[in-house]
């Protein structure tokens, strides 16, 4: 590393640490209102030199597992908004323009492409299906986008495309797990859990990792895609719901006023403090802290989860519909959440599995509607973050769990009534925007029909390595020991995709 770079790196780390320290001191001061815990707070300050004798008996993490920690390297962003289109959108109708495929429309797929390949539903020899949308080059970057996404065109220069992402999974459940946990099998922590474990939360009144779903269903792989795996459960994603309590049990029971809840928590903590004088177990102090936090969360969560008080022009910009569960609402909520210091916001939108079994899953019909549902909200999210100066410290990631075939699906080896595409893991598009991302970049290229990546292929592990890098981690060093083995999000793989970094 060049000396100048080294200095710069150090400066950035210092800054991040000072910032953390500030948060930390604030939490110490206000978090445990009224309790004289100073003397026990030996391990409170993560910046205390580690050479001090081991009497630093418990760290702030012991009291509060979401306490902010500085990343080991200079971060580019402090939070992530991950937009997952569950079911997997067709890159061939959105971003990956293939005029040749157009010409080959309705011709038999060459046998050479099918050899040794496995598909979920395609049988025998399928036919190629030309792009069903119209494409144009937009913005200064001149990157391609289809007419399914008219609003997105306006922000296209903020975005860096990955055109040749690949995965080795071609069924939804395992592929979603792979995309979010780095493994197609259950049991590993999700990327949001890793980030929250490594960095804690900037806001002690909100969960550090929030999940919002739309499209009427949760992802195929279920809650495991935001699970904590073998990490402590406190780092798993907290699903904030649009209907019912935004967070389970956040609402006081009917008939219990805020004052009475305050009195209850005061009484509990008073007795717990009494208990601490007897047992001196720091877990008791942690519990006192958690009860205060719970009380504050009960106010903070409903507040951040309500879009009522947003100005009309903002609501209009996103196209939100109050009281409904929608992707637009979730985009606006995502902005509010990162604005309030939430580390990782995960949006899942269901309904992208365009097999062509009916109107809603046809790439020329239903897919167009799905695109309409996300087009304005995504453009609004990018612009809104930008106008607030938040885009530079936030990373937005967009993608599905895999892509779709250039061939038309022929389920059961029969011709189908609607135009659809099967699952395809060999080449698909993702994009990123925000801090540390090279604006307007386009990396990777697929062959003439969009079947295989021919340049700049990147794996799911590479995407993970890049996200962790932007958060200030070296993905090879960021490990957790479980059942005798050091685990990484990227397992034994992953290369940072430098070509899309600013």
């Amino acid at each position, binding site marked *: 590393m060049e000396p100048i770079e080294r200095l710069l790196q150090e400066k950035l780390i210092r800054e991040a640490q000072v910032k953390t320290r500030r948060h930390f001191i604030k939490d110490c001061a206000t978090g445990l209102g009224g309790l004289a815990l100073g003397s*026990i707070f030996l391990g409170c300050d993560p910046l205390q030199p580690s050479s001090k004798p081991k009497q630093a*008996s418990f760290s702030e993490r012991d009291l509060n597992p979401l306490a902010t920690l500085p990343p080991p390297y200079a971060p580019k962003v402090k939070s992530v908004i991950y937009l997952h289109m569950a079911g997997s959108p067709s890159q061939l109708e959105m971003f990956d323009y293939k005029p040749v495929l157009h010409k080959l429309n309705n011709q038999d797929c060459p046998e050479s492409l099918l050899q040794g390949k*496995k598909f*979920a539903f395609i049988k025998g020899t399928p036919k190629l299906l030309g792009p069903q949308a119209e494409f144009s080059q937009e913005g200064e970057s001149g990157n391609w986008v289809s007419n399914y996404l008219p609003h997105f065109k306006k922000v296209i220069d903020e975005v860096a495309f990955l055109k040749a992402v690949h995965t080795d999974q071609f*069924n*939804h*459940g395992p592929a979603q797990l792979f995309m979010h946990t780095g493994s197609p*099998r*259950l049991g590993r922590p999700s990327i949001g859990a890793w980030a929250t474990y490594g960095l804690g939360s900037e806001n002690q009144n909100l969960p550090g990792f929030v999940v919002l779903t739309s499209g009427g*269903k*949760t992802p*195929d*792989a*279920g*809650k*495991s895609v935001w*699970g904590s795996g073998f*990490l*402590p*459960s*406190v780092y798993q994603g907290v699903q904030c719901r649009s209907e*019912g*309590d935004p*967070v*389970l*049990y*956040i609402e*006081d*029971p*009917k*008939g*219990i*006023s805020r*004052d*009475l*809840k305050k*009195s*209850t928590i005061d*009484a509990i903590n*008073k*007795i*717990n403090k*009494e*208990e601490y004088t007897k*047992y*001196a*177990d*720091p*877990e*008791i102090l942690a*519990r006192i802290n*958690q009860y205060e*936090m*719970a009380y504050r969360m009960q106010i903070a969560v409903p507040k951040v989860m309500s879009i009522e008080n947003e100005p009309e022009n903002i609501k209009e910009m996103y196209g939100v519909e109050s009281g409904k569960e929608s992707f637009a609402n979730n985009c606006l909520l995502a902005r509010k959440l990162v604005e309030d210091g939430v580390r990782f916001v995960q949006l899942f939108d*269901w309904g992208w599995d365009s097999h062509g079994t009916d109107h809603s899953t046809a790439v020329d019909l239903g897919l167009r509607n799905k695109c309409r549902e996300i087009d304005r909200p995504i453009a609004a999210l990018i612009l809104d973050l930008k106008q607030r100066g938040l885009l530079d410290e936030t990373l937005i990631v967009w993608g599905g769990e895999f892509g779709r075939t250039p061939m038309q699906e022929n389920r*059961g*080896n*029969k011709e189908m009534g609607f135009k659809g595409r099967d699952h395809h893991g060999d080449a698909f598009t993702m994009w990123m925007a925000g801090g540390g991302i090279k604006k307007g970049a386009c990396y990777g290229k697929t062959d003439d029909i969009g079947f295989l990546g021919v340049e700049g292929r990147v794996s799911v592990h590479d995407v993970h390595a890049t996200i962790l890098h932007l958060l200030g981690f070296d993905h090879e060093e960021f490990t957790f020991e479980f*059942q005798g*083995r050091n685990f990484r999000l990227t397992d034994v793989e992953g290369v940072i995709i430098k070509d899309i970094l600013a």
Partner: protein
Amino acid sequence: MNKKIISGIGVALGIFSLIFLWNWLKPEDKVNFSAEIKPILNKHCISCHGGVKKNAGFSLLFEEEAFANTESGKPAIIPGNAAGSEFIKRLKEEDPELRMPYEKPKLSDEEIDLLTKWVNQGAQWGEHWAYSLPEQVEVPKLTAKAGFSIENSSAIQNDIDPFILQRLEKEGLEPSPPASDNILARRVALDITGLPPDSTLFQKYTSGKLSYEHLVDSLLVQSSFGEKWASWWLDMARYADTKGYEKDLGRSMWQYRDWVIKALNNDMPYDQFTIEQLAGDLLPNPSIDQLIATAFHRNTMNNDEGGTDDEEFRVAAVIDRVNTTFDVWQSTTMGCVQCHGHPYDPFKQKDYYHLMAFFNNTRDEDTPNEAPALRFYAPEQQESITKINDWVSKYGDSSTVRAYRDFLRFQEPVYKSHSLQDFVNGSYDDHASSVLWSNGSCRLENVWTHGADYFYFNHYTYRPGTTFTVRKDHANGEILTKVLLEKTEEPVTKRIPIKKVDGKFNIHIEISNPNIAKDKNAMHIYWLGFLPNLPGSEQPGFSKIQREFDKAINFKAPILPVTSENPDHMKRTTQVFERGNWLLPTDTVQPSTPAALNAWDDSWSKDRLGFSKWLVDKKNPLTGRTLVNRVWYQLFGRGLVSTVEDIGSQSDFPSHPALLDWLTLRFMNEHQWSLKSLIKEIVSSGTYRQQSELTPETYQRDPENELYARGPRQRLSAEQIRDQALAVSGLLSDKMYGPGVMPPQPEGVWQTVYSGERWVESKAEDRYRRAVYTFLKRTSPYPSFVTFDAGSREVCTIRRTVTNTPLQALVTLNDPVYLEASFQLARMMQSAKDLEEQLALGYEKATMTRITPEKLAALQELYRASLTEFSNNKDELEQFLHFDASPTAALGALTVVANAIMNLDEFLSKA
């Protein structure tokens, strides 16, 4: 030269050489490889010179590798010659390009000295303690030393204590005084039964009418013992009520859960407990219970998602079984070895596949029907089954008897539809069936018919007039059968005559139905089953039995997925997967166990049964230690080896190695694998009975309580927290067993793709069952349990991480389950005469402790605030106690107080 001088020099030389000789020959402390050297190698060297990477051709994982020639052509370690050993030279290098560890800080002088000494002493490779047999050790004799009073001390209650006290003495610490009777009674009851002690037992013990030993005995015989310890085992067994993956549909596994509870309550010896779960089906004449036990390895997930490859997920399940078996019984992470040699432990990649060969021959194939599934017949069905089995026993040979018995039990072995291939006008349709159109055909290879005259065909023909033809070998082959199949309303099993054929051959299946359009589905095929002919065909009553059998195989019955072995003609070969990838099979391997562990006894069969005997052989160094360590962990919140999931070269060194070995041998020999005896022994120790109070000083001295100078204090488990709330409020049902129940959970928690399954709130006492009976959906477990760190049971869980979060506070404060319990506790509190007594009663019922004035004052204050609020605001009161017809402000206020009590740290913890 002067003679004197010469002789002086001679003397000096003599003395010098003597000193030299002495220095050279003097007994030097022998370096202990596994305690002193292996940890340094593991920490600093093995990540580049070990199982995964072997940089410069040098590896320190196995003895033969360490002393072999490296890429330089010479060995790096020359025993007896540190100065000539590259291994030592590189540690001292000044050039950072040459110095090891590469790009890492230099080793400390002490570490380099130790390694040097070790090489000079001959570089003897030792066996790691974890892979050597537990040693026979004497219980330490304690001497009363400096202020360490052990005479008549309550600290010594049994032979565990001297081991603990010996270390305390060495560390200069005193044990804590015994916990008070009430605290101890609550602690031991929660540990043994998962519940607070019932009031009679509590009264008797605290009033001195019952000894501690009798208290422990009476707790151990309660059936709640099995329910408590089942949660521990079921975490390891990854028991759940759904299949996992995308659809995560329900499955009927609860019979297995009940088996575990019963086995624990009956104190089934752990060796038998092991054998029945891993290989119950291979025991001679297995009972139904022994088959139920084998559901242990059917708790693997099953993928029903459309388009998934059954073989891929079958292999995934087999891999999970190997990994889980080693996680559960050997504290060893075999998962590593699937792709490469173990990074630290002495296991090679091939070992993994040799082990996999034991598990790779079960009948299950990731089909949605979860075959093989044990069928539980209704009494009248069972009558018919018994009749058939009796008939076969009377007239058939032993293999026919077994074939018929197994087929009636779990309808295997059969050829499933995903084995069909070469479809013309048809395809495999992802739902455990193959579809043929009106003129479709397909092929099944390597079929063995037992040379029978008929076979069993599970199919669904929803149109009349379908002709079904089976030919030998190919489309123009000899016709073996041709029948017209009736229209069916659902999948049915039909007996179809077939020409006798000996040996294995391929069959060609074709169907035709002129009445329907060409590309319309005519039939679903699920499986084809071949059995030897029903014996006794010359006997009177034969055709009646044959009809009875044909009927019986279509009986509808509840099922439980179980394990059953492939018959010889269906055996799979096991191959090493390159880099762990199932699509890249290489060398074929046979079942065998790793060389690093105990030797194989040739009297054992080379199958799961033999394997499980190997596992519980007393010469296995890990099975006993693992179990003892984990039971200790359950009771103390920390293992004697603190890495409870890992006992091996990378694990922590035991805090009390001699105690671990002593207890392990005692568990296997004196206690004869009895779990209850082991638990009793540990909870009877003075160590366990100590009070758990500490001071900032003692905390700082030993924050993790590694030395046991105090008793255990931990937050309760998710299950215990719920069960305790229901118990102290009198709501808890003692109903045992049966399908999972669905106590209230918030609306809309279950949202699953492609599944119409719903959370249907249980009625009456099923709302108040113990947590172990709560329905567990893997992709959406009961939310309040998850908040308190219970897992989703997708894979084997050895240790639950205990967290302390605001979401937990929200559960016990706001979940209606806890409010209902608070309300019931409040009503009990009303029985006391005045407020002070009411509050004290509630507190005592919940915590089993007398209330202190300070705590009472805090509760009084809360009571007054609530009373004022509810008196002034009747609406709030009615909303709060909406389930009570005529709520009073006093009851409302008591409910608030009761809820606060259920949120106290002392309620949520065992002290």
